[in-house]
């Protein structure tokens, strides 16, 4: 029944940064998008999401701004900073290298 896959250590940061790339959004939306885009394979536990957001904020990769949500409620939006953008690029590249390496091993042995 449980098809959800546990996230690898560190990948949550990458997913959050990637989700924020198109534009600022709030925590709930980030979780939703990750779930939808991964076709329900990846589910982000709120217990990990918010600490991760605060951590990324503390590192200066994302910045908070308070804004209005779709139905006019105050919500905390997160925006990718310039440093966050660089970090996203670096982490994406690292992830692709890693995935390719794992793929090579799975194909050739």
């Amino acid at each position, binding site marked *: 029944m449980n098809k959800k896959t546990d996230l690898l250590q560190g990948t949550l940061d990458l997913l959050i940064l990637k989700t924020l790339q198109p534009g600022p959004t*709030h*925590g*709930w*939306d980030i979780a*939703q998008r990750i779930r939808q885009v991964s076709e329900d394979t990846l589910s982000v*536990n*709120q*217990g990990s999401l*918010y*600490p991760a957001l*605060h*951590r990324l904020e*503390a590192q*200066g990769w994302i910045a908070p701004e308070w804004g209005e*949500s779709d139905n006019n*409620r*105050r*919500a*905390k939006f997160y925006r990718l900073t310039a440093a966050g953008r660089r970090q996203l690029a670096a982490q994406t590249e690292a992830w692709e290298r890693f995935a390719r390496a794992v793929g090579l091993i799975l194909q050739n042995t």
Partner: protein
Amino acid sequence: MKSELWRRLRALFRRSEMEGELDEELRFHVEKETERNVARGMSPGEARRVALVEFGGSERVREECRDVRGVRPLEDLWQDFRYGLRLMRKSPGFTAVVVATFALGIGANVAIFSVLNAVLLKPLPYPQPEQLVTLHQSKPNFDTGAVPYPNFLDLRKENRTFSAMAVTRTTGFSLTGAGEPERVSAQYVSADFFSLLGIDPLPGRTFAPGEDERGAPPVALIGADLWRRKFNSAPDVLGKGINLDDRSYTVVGVIPVGFNLRVNVFRQSDVYVPIGQWETPMLQNRGAALSLHGVGRLKPGVTVEQAQADLDRVMRDLAAAYPATNSGNGAKVLPLKERIVGRLRPTLWMLLGAVGFVLLIACVNVSNLLLARSTGRAREFAIRAAMGAGRWRLIRQTLAESLLLAPIGCGLGLLLASWGTRAALGLLPATLPRAEEIGLDAPVLLFAVGISLLTGLLAGLAPALKTSRWRLSETLKEGGRGASSGRARAQGVFVAVEIALALVLLVGAGLMIRTLGALWEVDPGFRPNDVLTFNLNLSPSMRTAEPAAVRAALRELSDGISSVPGVRAASFADGAVPMLDENDLYFWLADQPKPATTSEMHTALVTEVEPGYLAAMGIPLKRGRFFARQDDERSPPVVVIDESFARKYFPNADPVGKRIRFDDEGDASQIVGVVGHVKQWGLDADDEQSLQSQLYVPFRAVPDDALRGVGGVRVVARMDGLTPALFDSIRRVVQSRNSQNIISRPQTMEEVIAVSLAARRFSMTLLNVFAAAALLLAGVGLYGVISYLVGQRTHEFGIRLALGARPRDIFRLVLSRGLTMALVGVVIGLAAALGLTRLMTGMLYGVSATDPATFTIIAMLLTAVALLACLIPAIRATKVDPMVALRDE
């Protein structure tokens, strides 16, 4: 980087705002989730429930979010402290007890440390104090003798390791011509004495080398006290003349207040005069030590050992050049600081150790209190742990409380210490060197802060560790009663430790009490009660009088004093007066050839006394006779010896009738009587001194030479009660003969003995105070633990009683529990005391460091106190009403 810092500071100071934001953010999430669930077709209530379940433990999310903010430790600390403060306010009684315990322990420690710091640790208040040493001439059986002036001059000239050398000698003058004639204390000093120590006169100058010689114009330095007393601290005192023993001295400088070289015979004085101007032919005598004591300043980088070797070389040369006076004599160099405070070292460290024990006991008590209280909070801690509080966080929480209480105790303790130090110094009048330097300075404050932190940590550690280790489910199951057996064991250990520490202190105090008891029992060899001693100085005009006139004046005064109503017996006493003055002479037995050098001669303590001396001092006559008025300068020379002298030189013969010689001229002195031995060196130290033999010479037989220029003499008098009025009537009689005669420094012999025991009494009093505090703390600690255990087991006792146990059984159960703890403590304490009291051996007298009687009595005393402490809780336990205990559930 700057923004990072800013963010953290913001996080710290706008904490509530950020907490609010976090709340809002999480709430928003749950609402969105609820909306989504509703959209999926759930009822609003169900939708919210699912959203909340999905979200999981919101408190943990919050904690983790706070964690990443990076100010967590500071924030928590602040929180812990505020929490601690709240708790303190909630239970003021508990807080007061803990703070008082800390204050006592820390205060006592700071007080003792401030003494130790000022006396032992701080450098002496002179420039480069480590270069300062004292100089002594040593004989084979006496290391620290005085240095004859010619030897000093040679040492100063021939040494290669000293940058300066000086001598001093205590004396006194009659100050006349400036108001009431007054006896002033004085020191002869060599010219560079003050510059050697680095002391600058204010105002004025020190002596020039040319002034330190015979025939130079008389000059003097005066002490700041005399300057204020006689000259109103006027700066124009320089160049003025003062009359000392009828001779005018020009004042060239003022020595500042507080200068007091507490070493040898040097005393803070009113007047300082160049020693070279001392007009006594003896000064040029290489065999006459004249109580001259040396100080020196080593060249930079020179060690005491090198200086010692250097002076050894010079003394060897002198012995070769002047064998008659110098053979067998060496030199001794000792660090000045060691000489001043060295003898106090063991006492002060012992006291610091003892007071450290008191602090440990205080710590254990506070620990116990915290532990007992934390039991009441077991449920609170268990719930907090269940809600995700980390173990370290709980430990810190408990520690924060004791760490908060300790500094408050420390603050109070400092007040106690500054008051207590003053009180303690009052117990030790003038005998503690450097007492004026004691105070709460930086090292002392640092020590206070250090031990208060340490104390807080130590007291909080055990409860903190215990608290954090409780099993959640068990604690909750037991209804908050806690896992009692484990904690009871910890408290049992605490009680045993307390009892053991208290026992060690009590044994120490007991041994000191026995020591003082033994010392008071020691027979000083004379009866000190009702004996007064004072100095008598003839009018300065007598200094130039003929010896016959001096002799007549002294006899007249002696008769005058003896005839004052209320004076039962009186005598002049010049020389070795017990515990006050020292004087020794070389002699040889008349039936043996004269030894070639003085170092081969015998020595004895010598006192010149009058016929009334035995009655005045209360010394028993053992054989023969004492002096009579007829024993004077014209009669055949006679002496009286003491039993110690008789035993040493005439072990198998009757000494009466035997003869001894002091020199080649005239007749040998005949021994006419034997008297009891007197403890010349003090009640405690006399037995250890090698120089024991005592010799009395008739004062009336003193030759003319010795009377020329005699300034003063000591008087001892046995009186009908020691009243100031009686002393005044003696003064009137003395001044009726000559208005410029002075009597000064009255002391009772009982005071003299008390002063000789002051240091020991000081340690004993403090040890007693510490031991009493320890006993009290340990007793209260034991009482607290037993009461607590009884409280814990009320339920159990109720069931037992309901099932037919007799109250007696319960009583026995509680008592045996308490006594077991106490006895374990007593056994450990006895073992520890056996090891530790050995360190006190040097302070004890007449009692062994492992005195079985003391150990037994103290062990019994502690057991009795323990029994008493257990009694009330044990009785309370038997009174448990089974119904009430069971209904409690």
